[in-house]
């Protein structure tokens, strides 16, 4: 019988009353893993954020109540708020390329969505974003709905200076070029003047400082 064999093995196992037997050892490992989870998981699970005392980022700490992974100065972006030369271009395979000044961008119809920045480094936090739906721009430029889109940044350094999203994603009504976060204009470190905000997009691909939308 299996249980008999187990009992025999238990009887012949060396007795170590002073150590941890296998069950207690496994429970200790589980306790260690549990302690690590408990002190970090709040950086992704907002209701537990006060427990995240050993997390490298806290969901609501940063400019405008949202963490920043890369500041503008880390990737060579300068403030274009006073720069009349800033343009948002919609180009590539489009019928009518667009070139919009910041004023023209701001004059457009906006929409508000609630979406998280979900960083691949492990933190995640939701915010209210207001911006122009990317589909409005694509429609006006006469892009094909199935065509993938590359959103490019003003940033000159760093490997993630753009994001490629497929057609269905680009035309989703919640996919925005955001102008505001939580009711305020985006600060420079959050991607002023425009930041891509798309559902189900990892944080590193929510491209900041957007200047070009290229239809492939």
């Amino acid at each position: 019988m299996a249980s008999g064999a187990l009992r025999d093995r238990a009887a012949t196992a060396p007795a170590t009353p002073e150590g941890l037997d296998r069950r207690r050892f496994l429970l200790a490992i589980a306790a260690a893993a549990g302690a690590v989870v408990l002190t970090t998981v709040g950086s992704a699970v907002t209701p537990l954020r006060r427990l995240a005392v050993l997390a490298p980022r806290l969901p609501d700490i940063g400019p405008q109540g949202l963490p920043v992974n890369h500041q503008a100065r880390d990737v060579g972006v300068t403030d274009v708020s006073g720069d009349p030369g800033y343009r948002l271009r919609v180009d590539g395979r489009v019928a009518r390329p667009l070139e919009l000044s910041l004023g023209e961008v701001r004059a457009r119809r906006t929409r508000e969505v609630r979406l998280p920045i979900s960083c691949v480094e492990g933190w995640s936090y939701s915010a209210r974003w207001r911006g122009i739906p990317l589909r409005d721009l694509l429609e006006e430029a006469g892009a094909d709905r199935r065509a993938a889109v590359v959103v490019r940044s003003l940033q000159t350094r760093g490997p993630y200076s753009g994001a490629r999203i497929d057609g269905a994603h680009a035309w989703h009504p919640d996919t925005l070029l955001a102008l505001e976060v939580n009711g305020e204009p985006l600060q420079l470190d959050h991607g002023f003047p425009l930041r891509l905000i798309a559902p189900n997009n990892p944080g590193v691909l929510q491209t900041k400082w957007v200047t070009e939308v290229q239809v492939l």
Partner: protein
Amino acid sequence: MTGPPAQPPRYGRLFWALLPVGGLLMAWGLVGLFRDAALTVPASWLRWFLGGLLVHDLLLVPAVLAVGLAVRRLPPALQPPVRTALIVSGTLALMSLPLLLGYGRATQPGNASLLPGDYPRSLAITVGTVWAAAAAWALLCLLGRRGR
């Protein structure tokens, strides 16, 4: 330790079938490491890959063995709580090391969202809680033994 005498391992068909699969996966990883060198920084990868092994074998394991020898001198009733507390607090301390050393602060000066916590204090509180629980457990063990 008793057991059957060690025999040279015999590899079955599954081993030989999976060997090229594993080899190909490793080769694919290496190709990615060098093809995307701008992202992976092979020199840094090598430092972590070899450095991790060296730190584990030359520092961590001897330290754990030394602590294990020291713990053996404790009264038997205290050993389970002390060993458990060492495993939990050691894990917490190890994982807090980059926070305590402030990794990333130098490359991103002025980023308020980076490492915002008071990590020495947090670690002291969490490890203190672990040892308080272990002390309560040890007390229960001692009382139980005396009562018997």
